[in-house]
């Protein structure tokens, strides 16, 4: 347990878990594009060298090889930075993998502003792009338990899956494994998800940890809040989400480590519009902007993605000003961004 927060911090949860998980699944192969250790599969490569394939810095071809392997009955798990799975090789992703609905798993690291690598490394539009691809399933991890359990969720899907993956030091927030297309109900305003709430907050990925820092203070200040954590972004048909959205009295707030266009906020807007839910929607996320190279904590503050941004949005939604300062929030978890723990940060 961290003395900072009381939250357990797990270092590199993917490394050993993926090795254990793959042991009895000979159909699993891994393809990497020169970012093997950066994507925490260096030990996997050394454990299963006969089913690890280095493809070099050539993502278009890597996606094609993955398609061919999938057609022969293998299940390729591609490990590279998220931006290199959908920006550079988008036509290959669409035509070679998504159209034929092949069982290829695209494990995308460095979602959103989780990297100091700057604009070239920050996948801020990946969900928007992936949501527009037929046959694609989109999963996002928000803690160490989800980094571990996303493997089973993806493995069970008969088609391509894109995973927003976390690496390095990851908090363990949830005791239960990720379930496909099932929101986690983290708090409810009344006795059940259907009971009226001042605010319904939906968060995904690292934004859930930010929300968990702010919501106790908001609740103490008298706001009733129902909070859902979303890990399946496509499909987005969980009836729990609709029930929760219908319960919102004053506002719905979404928080995502992504542009507010095309991601969680847009998906929620679509569900609300299609179901005639007229509650105002406040979307926290990057607003029509690229980001730049800096620490995650700095970028969360700079782009209004942090816990305090939820406090401000809640105040706006409820027409009041909360007397909550940053010091009133649950402490920030300080990740050792530039220490030896992140030597492969780029």
């Amino acid at each position, binding site marked *: 347990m961290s003395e900072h927060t009381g939250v357990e911090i797990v270092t590199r949860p993917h490394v050993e878990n993926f090795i254990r998980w793959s042991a009895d699944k000979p159909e699993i192969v891994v393809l990497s594009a020169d970012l093997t250790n950066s994507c925490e599969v260096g030990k996997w490569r050394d454990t299963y060298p006969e089913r690890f394939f280095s493809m070099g810095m050539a993502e278009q071809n890597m996606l*094609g*090889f993955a398609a061919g392997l999938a057609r022969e009955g293998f299940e390729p798990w591609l490990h590279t930075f998220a931006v290199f799975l959908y920006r550079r090789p988008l036509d290959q992703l669409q035509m070679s993998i998504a159209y034929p609905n092949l069982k290829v798993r695209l494990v995308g690291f460095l979602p959103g502003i989780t990297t100091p690598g700057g604009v070239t490394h920050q996948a801020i539009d990946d969900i928007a792009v992936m949501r527009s691809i037929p046959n694609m399933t989109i999963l996002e991890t928000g803690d160490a338990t989800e980094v571990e359990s996303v493997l089973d969720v993806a493995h069970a899907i008969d088609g391509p899956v894109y995973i927003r993956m976390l690496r390095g030091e990851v908090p363990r927030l949830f005791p239960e494994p990720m379930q496909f297309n099932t929101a986690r109900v983290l708090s409810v305003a009344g006795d059940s998800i259907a009971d009226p709430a001042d605010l319904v907050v939906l968060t995904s990925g690292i934004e859930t940890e930010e929300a968990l820092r702010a919501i106790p203070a908001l609740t103490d200040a008298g706001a009733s809040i129902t909070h859902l954590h979303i890990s399946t972004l496509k499909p987005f048909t969980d009836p729990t989400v609709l029930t929760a959205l219908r319960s919102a009295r004053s506002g719905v707030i979404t928080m995502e480590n992504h542009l507010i266009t095309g991601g969680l906020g847009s998906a929620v807007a679509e569900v609300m519009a299609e179901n005639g839910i007229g509650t105002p929607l406040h979307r926290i996320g990057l607003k029509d902007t690229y980001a730049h190279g800096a620490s995650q904590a700095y970028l969360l503050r700079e782009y209004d993605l942090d816990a305090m941004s939820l406090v401000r949005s809640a105040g706006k939604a409820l027409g009041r000003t909360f007397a909550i300062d940053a010091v009133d929030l649950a402490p920030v978890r300080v990740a050792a961004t530039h220490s030896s723990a992140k030597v492969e940060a780029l």
Partner: protein
Amino acid sequence: MATGIRRRVLAHVLANNGGYLSQACSSAELLAALYASVLKLAPTEGPLHPPTFEAVPGPDAPRVSGGVFHGEVGPDLDRLIISPAHYALVVYAALIESGRLDEAALDQFNKDGSTVEMIGAEHSPGFETTTGSLAQALSTAGGIALGRRLKNETGRTFVFMSDGEFQEGQTWEAIQALVFYRLDTVRVVVDVNRAQCDGPMDSVMTIEPLATKLKAFGASVDSVDGHDIAALTASLERQTGKPHFVLAYTDPARGVPLTQRSQARPALPALHRPRGTSRIPEVL
């Protein structure tokens, strides 16, 4: 067989006032060499009828493969992956000449609800992959060959390519990976007709010296007369221990002389769906 391929494509183009004719002129011998002598394929139960189009692949719609026209797959049998899907009409003609496709299939060509599409996709006869976006098939074929090696299969994976695809960067990414993994079961035959949509390749973006480039990448290369079936067959069968490329230099007006004479630019016919006129071309 090559003459039969040309005749069927010409008749179809005349009857439909246009179509991909020059592809038949250039590649008839390539496909004849593959289907008639090189490829080890299981037989089909006579000429098969093309299925009607049912659905795109998805959660409730399994993939439909045009590979069924190549017979059942087997560990020691060959595969043929067609890369330039714009050659579909020629592939259909070759399958008919091979006794694998009902000759009435061409009546369904480019008709609504048909799998006999103008630019073939993986449900179209003879196609395993969807490669109308050019230069993606070689990578997929590399993955297929790698998967077959992992399963200890001995059959070869042939890829039919067009020369324009060597302008795409992905092709060279694929070649470096084929060489890196020593995938010598991959045999690529390239229709080097030196023509592309905008005109002669040398006026659009030259790819030569292609053989030199391929050898520098570590592949084995033969340059042959693409209308010499014996030379094509010998090269396609040659064991080299490397990914093997057969550069078949061809004439995109071969066998239909009027296409050659009728163009403003000498020696090369329009590549992209020449339209018919009131004049009747000289017959083969």
